[in-house]
């Protein structure tokens, strides 16, 4: 029906867009037409000015002022980085494209993960030297199960070395802690209810009870 480039129909669609009554493909076409046609831009301004004046006469501004304002703002917008809100349709190809380059970072991520695990276990050993044999067993288990999952995630994840490493790192900490909580709970479920003096164990019980 309406064909692109036919003056009036393109204008009429722009008018519909002004009212938010145009579908998505129509909006895309109309925006492109607006950007490429000074006459359409002048219409767009005139129509909105008309709407403003109809609603309130004190919005009838000097047209030269409007034009200057928008010209100035356009220059400032050109200096701005283009905004891009994350959308599912766009996120998909981005991951695929950087997949090849992500390969070396996978090892970096794995290294970071391993370092994180060592840190967790190390900290653990220092903080609780011999008090907690079962927890150390839990920590010893962690590298195998945890290291595997973030590496797999890193391969599908786009992105540079740093963010992946950080995300993986925090995951390790959280997961290992969770493991410990669960492990501790299993181990001391009965005894903590009877009143074990350690605050740490008590919070583990509460935590798992809330779950």
């Amino acid at each position, binding site marked *: 029906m309406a064909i692109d480039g036919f003056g009036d129909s393109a*204008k*009429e669609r722009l*008018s*519909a*867009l*002004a*009212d*938010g*009554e*145009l579908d*998505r493909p129509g*909006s*895309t076409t109309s*925006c*492109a037409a*607006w*950007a490429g046609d*000074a006459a359409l*831009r*002048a*219409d*767009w*301004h*005139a*129509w*909105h*000015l*008309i*709407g*403003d*004046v*109809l*609603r309130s*006469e*004190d*919005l*009838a*501004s*000097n*047209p*030269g*002022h*409007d*034009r*200057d*304002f*928008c010209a100035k*703002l*356009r220059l*400032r*917008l*050109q200096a*701005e980085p*283009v*905004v*891009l*809100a*994350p*959308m599912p349709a*766009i996120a998909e190809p981005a991951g695929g494209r950087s997949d090849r380059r992500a390969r070396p970072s996978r090892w970096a991520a794995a290294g970071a993960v391993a370092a994180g695990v060592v840190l967790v276990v190390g900290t653990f050993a220092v903080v609780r030297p011999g008090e907690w044999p079962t927890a150390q067993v839990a920590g010893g288990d962690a590298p195998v199960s945890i290291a595997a999952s973030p590496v797999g995630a890193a391969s599908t994840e786009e992105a540079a070395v740093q963010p992946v490493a950080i995300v993986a790192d925090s995951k390790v900490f959280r997961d290992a802690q969770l493991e410990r909580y669960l492990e501790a709970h299993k181990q001391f479920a009965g005894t903590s209810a009877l009143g074990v003096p350690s605050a740490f164990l008590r919070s583990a019980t509460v935590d798992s009870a809330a779950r």
Partner: protein
Amino acid sequence: MNAPDADAPLVERVKQGDVKAFEMLVVKYQRRIERLIGRMVRDVDLVPDIAQETFIRAYRALPQFRGDSAFYTWLYRIAVNTAKKSLMELKRDPLVTESARAGRDEDDDNPRVENEPSDAATPDAVLASKQIASAVNFAVEALSEDLRQAITLREIEGLSYEEIAELMNCPIGTVRSRIFRAREAIAARLRPLLDTREGDRW
């Protein structure tokens, strides 16, 4: 307004990286935003600058705009915050702007001549605004009943095409065409007033 936000299609375009769609929103709202800021900030010379800042901030923040409110409501809030911030900064670091000085020197016989006055305040600009307002009203009066009703229901009552179609008992396509023809007819009367400066194009 309970109708879906009329700006949603343009906002979506901006979120996909279409800066021009944001310019379209600027053209649409610049007058309202400037009026709003003008009510908060006495100094008319500062109003366009604060309005510019408002739009730049809105552009930067747009990825976070979730559409929970209408786009204009969101923009309105940014304008209010930007104006407040400017007023605070002004209090801390007062600067004498052209119109503030003119206001103080009212009794002086030394009006502002050398510096270019801001166009919002000049008698010429006020006259131009008045001419536009009367041209619009005159053009609306001259419309056929159908066109006048359609444009009024849309612009003043804020109804959707569907609601107008129901009220006017005609297909939605007819509503769309009537509103468009009404706009064109009014714009035709405005054009001599709008195209005042040669070489200035939108």
